[in-house]
Structures are given as structure tokens and as C-alpha cells.
């Protein structure tokens, strides 16, 4: 049986890859993909932890909810990106620095 720690390592690796993508990418879509990576790392954790709750299946339940929420979140984020592109004619987050001014 695969021990929990393997899941944890993979999950952590996934999270780090996602985080790296979020922090470094020059494209909002790629950042969004990074975020998906990080959410999925979390979901993987839920599912892995669900092994210890076979009766109620709490981990799986939370994973389902998280997937739905992530899907909704991606929808919203894409809508924002679309609007940002309309407004700034770019989706490079480095160029969009109106927060500063």
C-alpha cells in the first residue's frame, strides 16, 4: 500500500510547481494554471487523507466541493482576465501596475 507520505510529497511538489508558476509567469493564463496546480495539490491531500475516513468519506466530499469551487473560480478568473485584456490590451501582470498609482 502506498504510504500517505508519498501523496504528501507529490502534493507538496505540485503546490510548489504551482506556486512557482504563479510567481514567475508573464502570462495571466499561465498564472491561472499555476493556481489550478495549487488547488489540485490541496485536493490530492484531501483525497489522500480520505483513506482514514472510509465511513463518512469526508475527504472525498471536500475534494468534490473543492473541484466545483475551483471550476467556478477558474470561470470567474477567466472572465476577469478577459476584461483585463479588454482594458489593458495585455494580460502580462508586469505591465498591469495600476495598483501602484
Amino acid at each position, binding site marked *: 500500500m502506498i504510504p500517505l507520505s508519498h501523496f504528501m510529497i507529490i502534493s507538496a511538489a505540485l503546490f510548489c510547481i504551482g*506556486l512557482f508558476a*504563479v*510567481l*514567475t509567469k508573464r502570462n495571466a493564463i499561465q*498564472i491561472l494554471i499555476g493556481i489550478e496546480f495549487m488547488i489540485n495539490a490541496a485536493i490530492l491531500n484531501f483525497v489522500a487523507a480520505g483513506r482514514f475516513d472510509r465511513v463518512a468519506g469526508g475527504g472525498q466530499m471536500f475534494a468534490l466541493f473543492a473541484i466545483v469551487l475551483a471550476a467556478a473560480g477558474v470561470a470567474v478568473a477567466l472572465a476577469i482576465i478577459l476584461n483585463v485584456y479588454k482594458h489593458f490590451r495585455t494580460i502580462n*501582470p*508586469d505591465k*498591469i*501596475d*495600476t*495598483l*501602484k*498609482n
Partner: protein
Amino acid sequence: MDFLTFSANTLCLLSLIALVFPFSSFLVILQLKKSQGATISIFNISVSLIASLLVFINVWNSTTLQQQVEWFQVGTVSISAGILLNNLSVLMMVLVSAISLLVHIYSISYMKGDENIYKYWAYLGLFCFSMMGLVISDSLLLIYMFWELVGMSSYLLIGFWFTKDAASQAAKKAFIMNRIGDLGFLTGLMIIYSQFGTFDIGRLFNVGGLVDSASIINGFWISESASVPVIWLTIAGLAFFIGAMTKSAQFPLHTWLPDAMQGPTSVSSLIHAATMVAAGVFLLGRVYPLFDSIALNTITVVGVFTAFMAATIALTQNDIKRILAYSTISQLGFMIAAMGIGAYGESIFHLATHAFFKCLLFLAAGSVIHQLHHYKEHHSLEFNHQDIRLMGGLRKQMPIAFITMCIAAAALAGLPFTSGFLSKDAILITSFEWAEGYHGFKKLVPFVLVLTSWLTVFYIGRLIFKVFFGKSNYKGVKDAPWPMTRILLILAFFSLFPLFSVNPLSYDNSWLLQGFVPAGVKPFDIFHLLVPIIVTGISAIIVLISYKLYGGTATKQLPENGLLYRFSNRAWYLDRVYDLLFVRSITALSIISHKFDTLIVDGLVNSLAGLARIISDIIHWFDRHVVDGLVNGIASLASKTGDFARQFQTGKLQHYLITMLTLVVTFFIITYLI
């Protein structure tokens, strides 16, 4: 004469009219600034004369009037002001207004063409007003105020031709010398007030008044309210005398008077005859009961000495007005000396007669000066038209001036049938009678006075003979115009005996003398006979001598470089002495104090300033570096912090995320690993 008899109230009103009218001419003329003030002035002074005459008729030898109102109140002290009319004041009123009127009329012609003529009339008005006020006031304080006003207006008049340097210097000198006397007067005033608590002349000096009833016990002068050592009585008397000394030009405070000749001659005449110089004698008359024997002796000595000194100076002067000025000083010495020996009435008598003949002398001299001045301008010549050495032979050219001046000179010399004879004899005889009761230096007094009167004869003879006899240098000089000469004629009449006494050779029955308390001396008939004869006899001889010396066509030149001559000509070097003693020493003192000021006071101030500068430099440094440094440091800290914090606010999404990540990771590291 019933219609000329008035009630007391009317009389006071009349004397107020006599006082206020000249003042109104002062105000009105200064307001109008018309070139013609003559009509107003002469009208006002005439009203004043008429009012004075009416008052005189009613008061003389019949009553003494005093009316007063409360003037002001300080705390519980109430000072009153009012009018005191007695023989002395009504006589002075008439004298002042009469002489003033004559001088006013004379001035119309004399001052004709002066560009500031309206000021002249205004100042004359002020002068008469102050003199009238001085005469009729019943309070020493009021007299003091008018006394100052007299000094002030004399300053204005002497300096009337203020563009002439000598005139403005003379005016200043007169004013400053008079301040010394004012100080004396003020001292006397304060002593009187602290002793008796009142300025009221009536209450103070009447028979049985405060001064009379104050007693001297054990060296203390005791009045109702106060008691002081008796020396204060003497000091009070001497203080008032110092006041009188300056106004009446007594040695050693007489030097302003000859210089005052810089004013117009009509002004000199007014000042010398009846007004300013008479004020001192008048003051002595007013406070007479105050003098004790020391004060009286001082007065006598000063009077006699002044009379003698001024006569010796007059001997050698060459300026016609200066001779007359010194003769005024000399005659005032006679009056003061008469006051000192107790011959109160005789002194006032001489004051009255002197007023007329001295006024005449000045006005006649003025007419000569006036004519010569016009001659000089007409022929555009350059010579001193007041120098008697350059005159001569004017007898035929100016007969009226000659005759009137001869009468006045005779009166001054005390020759018979003139008013001066009466009053001078009165003083001389009284002085002989007075000296009978004493030994020592007091015996000298009458002899010095007689000697002085002979000197008087000589110098006035010299003046007359030099001016009117001998050869004339000026062709075509005529008598002054009628408006001037008529005044001379009127005054010439007043300088003769009938105005004062029916008997031309004896003063005993003079109405004027009978108006005053007789001198308290034992009469000696022998003097009444001998003194006039001897004095007049020798006077006649002296007239002849002076005619021989100066009257001939070929005048012999007397040596003019002897020690005595120079001593006399330079007026006993008194001006030089005063210059050395007071002017130079004060100048030296002021130079020293200037040095003290620049070196020590300024040095102190400057070093203090330097110290303050150093301290302020330190404070400046401290401010700049410490206080500012602190503030700037705090500011730059805040700015640095801000700059540091700004670095994180790039506005870029991912930077924020990195920051958050860093913080969270740091937090976790701190929480779990350490």
C-alpha cells in the same frame, strides 16, 4: 465826578477788560495774519488805558479791592485766583497801558514796511497782556505765570528780527538769564506755600496778614501752620530778590539787557520804560513785608553796586542804545536800592518818572536812528547808524528830537523842573536820612548814589553833546515824521514836573508819593535843603565839563586805551567772565560727558552687544545643528522608512504575492523551526 464812581464789581470788570483786550489783539491779529494789525492793537490798548484810568480814579488812595474765584482744587487744597487792586497795582496799570499806547502809536511809523509787522503787533499785545496780568493778579502763583509770559513775550520781541544772528542770540540770552530769576521766584513761592499754605497776596502781605503775624522765636520762623528755622525767611526773601534781579537787570544778572537792544527800538523802549524791567521792582513791592534785615541789606548793596557799575559802563559806550540800556540798569539800581533802604514809595515814584523819561529817551533815540537809517539807505552808504561818534550837529536838523531828548536827559540827570529831579532827590535824601541811623558801610550808600547820579549826568551829557552838537556829517537829515514826533512831545510833557508835583523843587507834596507808606526814617530837614543844592550844583558843573569835552565843533579826543577805559568799555568784562565761567565750563563739561558717553557708555553698550552676538551665535549653532538636526533626523528617518516601505509597493501582483509568501514562510519558520 459821581458818574465816574463805580462799584467794586464794575471796577474788577474794568480791570479784566484792561487785561483781556491786549490779549485779544494778540489772538485776533495772529489769526487774521493781515499785514495791518495796527488799528486793532491801538484800539485795544486804548480801551485798556481808558479802563485802567477809570480804575485808577476809583481806587487810588481810597480803597483796596480784592475779588477772587476758586481756580482749582487738588485734594483738600483749594487755590484761588483773583484781582487785587491797590495803589501799587492801579498805578502800574495806568503806567503800563499809557506807555504801551504811546509806543504803539510810535511804532506805526517806526515799524512801517516791515514784512512781519502783524507779528509785531501780536507780540506787543501779548506783552501788554502779560504785564497787565502780572500787575493785577492777587495770587503769587498767577503772578509767576504772568512773569513767565513776560519773559516769553520779551523773548519774542527781542528776537523779532530773528534773521539777524545777533538778535536771536540776544533773545536767547535774555530768555536763559531770566530762567535763573524764575528759578529764584519759584523757590520763594515754594517756601511761602509750605510756610503759609496759600498764594493769596492779600492774606499774606496785608497789615496783620499771615506774614505780618508770623513770629520769630528762638531762631524759628513760626506761622499758623508751620515752623522752620529763621534762615528760611531770609532765603525766601533772597529767592524773590533773585527773581527781581533778572527781570530788573541787577548785577550780576544784568547782562541780558544791553544785548536786548537788538530788538526794535520801540520794543527796547517798552521793555525799559514801564514793563519788563519794572516787573522786578514791582515784585519787590508786592512781597515787601517778607524781607528781613539781611535780605534788605543784600537788596541795598546789590542795587547801589548795580547803579554805580552800570553808570561807569555807560560812560564809555559808543552805541546810542547801549548807553541808554546801561543807564536803565543804573536807574533800576536806584529803585532797588531805594527798596532796600525802605524807601518803598520813593522807589515806585522813581519807577513812574523813569518810565516816562526813559521811554522818551529811547523813542527820541529811535527817531534819530530811524532817520539816519533812511539816510543811509537813500544814499546807499555803509556805516553804523547807532554809533554816536559818527553823529553830531543834529540839533538844527532834528529840533524836536533835540528838545525832547534834552528834557528827557535832564530828567535822567535829575536837573530841576523835571520829574527825574523829584524822584531822584526823593531817593537820595531818604538814603541820607536812612544812613544817619547806621554805621559802617551803610554810611557809604548815599555817597555812592550821589556819585552815580553825577556819573549819570556826565554820560547822558556826553550822549546829547555828541549827537546833537558839533559838526553835522549828514546833509538833509530831517526830523522824524509827525506821528513819531508827536509822541516825543507828549512824553516830554510827562517828563516835566507838573504831572507829579505842583512844587517843582520839592517832592514832599507829590501826590504819587503820598499814595504809599512813607519810608520809616527820621526826617532831617538839613538834607532836604543841602542835598538838592549840592547835587544840582555839581551836576551843572559836570554838564559844562561834558559840553567842553564833547560839545565843541573840534571835539577833543579823550585817550581811549587806558586800563579804566577798557574796563568800562568792555562792561567790566562781565560777559567775558560769564563766558569763561559758565559757557566755557559747561561746554567743557559737555565735551567731557560726550567723551564719557562715547567711550564708556557706548563702550559698555557695544561690548554688551558683542557679548549678546557671541551668545546668539552659539544659540544659532545649537539651533542649526541640534534642534534642527533632531527634527531633520526624525523627518529623514520617516522618509527613509517610507522609502523602504515603498519598495514593496510596486503595484505588481506577483511582487505582492512574493512578499506574502516570504512573510508566511518567515512566520512558519519562526513559529515551528526556532
